[in-house]
C-alpha cells in the first residue's frame, strides 16, 4: 500500500513540474526580476562565468553560443524561407491565371497556356470539414480533460491519458484507410437519416455526390478523432494547473464537484482551452492524406452541404503531386499551398496569443 502510494506521489509531482515548467518560462524571460529565486538565477547566469574566464573560456564560449544561437535562427529562417519560396513560386502562375483566384471554383491546370484556377471550393471544403471536426472535438476534448484532471483517481489518470495519447500515435494514413473503408459505410445510415429529416437545413441538404459515403461529413468525423488528442492534451495541461486555493475555496462554500469545475476550473482554463482548440483547428486545416483518402472527388462545384465531396487545399496538392512537371501548373498548386500556409500561420499565432504563455503547443 505505502510504496504504491509513494510512487503515485512521485509520479504526480514530477508530472506537475513538467507541466509548470513551460508556463514559467516567458515570465522569467520577460521580467528578469520575477520571483525571488528565479531572479538570482537570471542574474548570475549570464554574468558569473564571464569575468572569471575571459581568457581561457572565451573562444569556446563564443563558438558554443554562436552554434546554439545559429540553430535557433535556423528555425526562424526555415519559417521565413517557406513563406518566401512559396510566394516566389506562386506569383508567376497567379499572374498567368485567367480565372479569379479567390472566387473561381475551377482548378484547371492541364493547359499551361490557359490556366484557370481559384480557391473558392477548396476554401469551402477545407473550412467545412475543419469546423465540423472542431464542433465535435471541442466538447468531447473538454470532457476528457475534465475527466482526466477532476474525476479519475490519480492512479488511473496516467494510464487513461496514455490511452488518449495512443490516438495521436496512429499515423494519419491509417486514419484515412479506416475512415473510408470501415467508418464511412458504418455511418451511412446516420448520414441518410440527417439528409432525410434535416435536409431543409443547408448543411444537410443533398450535396454534389451521388452517394453518402466519402463526404465532408465522414471527413469531419475522421478529422475530429484525429485532433482529439491535441485538444485534450493541451486542455488537460491547463486544467491541471488550476490554483488549489480556488478549488478549495469553492469546496469550502459547499460546492458540488460540478460547481467547483464551473466556478474554478473552467474560468481558469478557458483561454487555454480555446488555444488548444485552435491548435486542433490548425491541424485539421492542414491534414492531407486522411482527407484525400476519405473525401471523394466531386465533378460539380460545392454546394456548401456537408454531403458534398471535393478537395481541401492539402488533399488537392497531394492528389496532383505526381503531375508536378511544368512550372506554371505546379505554381498553381503552390499558390494553394501558400494560402494554406498563411491560414495555419494565422490560426497557430492566434492560439499562442490567446494562450498568453499558458500552454506550449
Amino acid at each position, binding site marked *: 500500500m505505502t510504496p504504491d502510494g509513494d510512487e503515485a506521489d512521485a509520479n504526480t509531482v514530477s508530472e506537475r513540474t513538467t507541466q509548470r515548467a513551460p508556463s514559467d518560462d516567458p515570465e522569467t524571460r520577460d521580467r528578469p526580476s520575477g520571483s525571488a529565486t528565479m531572479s538570482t538565477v537570471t542574474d548570475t547566469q549570464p554574468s558569473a562565468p564571464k569575468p572569471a574566464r575571459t581568457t581561457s573560456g572565451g573562444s569556446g564560449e563564443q563558438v558554443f553560443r554562436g552554434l546554439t544561437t545559429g540553430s535557433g535562427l535556423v528555425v526562424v529562417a526555415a519559417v521565413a524561407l517557406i513563406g518566401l519560396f512559396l510566394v516566389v513560386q506562386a506569383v508567376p502562375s497567379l499572374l498567368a491565371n485567367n480565372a479569379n483566384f479567390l472566387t473561381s471554383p475551377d482548378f484547371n491546370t492541364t493547359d499551361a497556356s490557359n490556366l484557370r484556377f481559384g480557391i473558392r471550393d477548396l476554401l469551402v471544403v477545407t473550412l467545412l470539414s475543419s469546423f465540423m471536426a472542431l464542433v465535435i472535438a471541442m466538447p468531447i476534448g473538454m470532457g476528457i480533460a475534465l475527466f482526466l484532471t477532476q474525476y479519475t483517481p490519480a492512479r488511473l489518470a496516467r494510464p487513461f491519458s496514455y490511452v488518449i495519447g495512443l490516438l495521436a500515435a496512429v499515423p494519419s*494514413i491509417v486514419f484515412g484507410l479506416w475512415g473510408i473503408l470501415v467508418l464511412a459505410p458504418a455511418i451511412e445510415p446516420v448520414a441518410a437519416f440527417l439528409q432525410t429529416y434535416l435536409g431543409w437545413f443547408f448543411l444537410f441538404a443533398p450535396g454534389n455526390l451521388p452517394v453518402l459515403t466519402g463526404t465532408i461529413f465522414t471527413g469531419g468525423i475522421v478529422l475530429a478523432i484525429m485532433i482529439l488528442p491535441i485538444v485534450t492534451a493541451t486542455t488537460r495541461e491547463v486544467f491541471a494547473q488550476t490554483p488549489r486555493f480556488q478549488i478549495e475555496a469553492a*469546496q469550502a462554500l459547499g460546492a458540488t464537484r460540478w460547481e467547483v469545475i464551473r466556478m474554478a476550473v473552467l474560468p481558469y482554463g478557458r483561454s487555454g482551452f480555446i488555444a488548444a482548440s485552435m491548435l486542433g483547428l490548425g491541424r485539421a486545416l492542414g491534414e492531407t492524406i486522411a482527407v484525400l483518402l476519405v473525401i471523394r472527388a466531386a465533378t460539380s462545384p460545392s454546394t456548401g452541404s456537408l454531403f458534398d465531396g471535393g478537395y481541401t487545399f492539402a488533399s488537392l496538392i497531394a492528389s496532383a503531386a505526381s503531375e508536378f512537371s511544368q512550372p506554371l501548373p505546379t505554381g498553381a498548386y503552390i499558390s494553394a499551398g501558400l494560402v494554406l500556409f498563411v491560414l495555419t500561420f494565422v490560426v497557430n499565432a492566434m492560439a499562442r496569443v490567446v494562450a498568453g504563455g499558458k500552454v506550449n*503547443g
Partner: protein
Amino acid sequence: MSAALDAPERPAVPATFRNVSTARKIKDRAATVLVTLAFLIAVVPLVWLLVSVLIKGFPAIVSADWWTRSLSGVTPDEARGGVYHAIVGTLVQALIAGVIAVPIGILAAVYLVEYGRGRIAKTTSFMVDILSGVPSIVAALFVFALFVSIGGFEQSGFLVGLSLVLLMLPVVIRNTEEMLRLVPDELREASYALGIPKWKTILRIVLPTALSGTVTGVMLAFARVMGETAPVLVLVGYARAINFNPFDGNQASLPLLIYTELSTNPSAAGQLRIWGGALTLILIVMLFQLAASLISRYSAISK
C-alpha cells in the same frame, strides 16, 4: 486507505454533501455522466480502428516473406512478396531527417533555455510554435519549390528526409527545452562556483542530466515523422524493389506503399497489403513510442 493516500493529489475531492438541493445534485450527476461519456466516446474509435487494422492486417504480417522480401517481380494480384523495401525506405528517410534535425533541435533548445533573452529569443520561440503547426504538405511543397523547381534536383528519398526535418525540429526542440528547464539551477551554480565556463557547464553537466529525457523526445519525433504521407507523395516516386540509396531513384516507404496499393490495386492481394502495411506502420511507430516511454520512465530528474 487508498483514497486517503490519493486525497492530496486530486483537487476536487468528492465531499459528502448533506444539504444539497435535488437540482444541484442532478446537475452534478449529469456532469459526471457526460464527462465520463466523453472519455468513452474517444475510446470507441480508437479500439474500433486498432481492432480493424489488427484483424485485416494480421494475416499479411505472419509470413516470413512479409518482413524479408520486396514486391519486386510480384504482379499486383499475386499474394506473395513483402514490404521489406518499404520498411527500409521508411527508416532511411526518417534517419536522414534525424541526423539533421536532432543536433539542430537540441542546440536550438539550449539557446532558448540557456542563452536566449529578449526579442530574438521570443521570435525564435514563436517560430518554433509556428513550425510545429506547418502542415506536412506545405513543408513538402517548400522543399519541392526550393530543390526541384529552383535547384533542379530529381525527386528522391533524401528530399523527403529534408522535409521531415521541418516536422521533426519543433518536436525535438520543445521536448529538449522542457527537459533542460527541469535541470536544477543548483547544478549550474555549483559548476560556475568551481570556475567552469558556461558552455562547458552546459555540455558536461546540463545536457547529460537531461539526456534521457532528450532521447525520449527524439524517439517521439521519429515516431511522428515515420507515418507522414504528404512528403512522400510530393517528393519521391514509389519503387517495388529495395533501394537503400536515398540520393538516387525512387524509394518506397510504408505510407507510400499503402497509398499506392490503395489507389491502383483493387485485388484481394492489394487489400491484404494495404492493411498489412498499416499494421506494420503502427507496430513500428508504437515500437518507437514504447522505447520513448521506457526511457522516460528511468529519466525523471530527481531534485
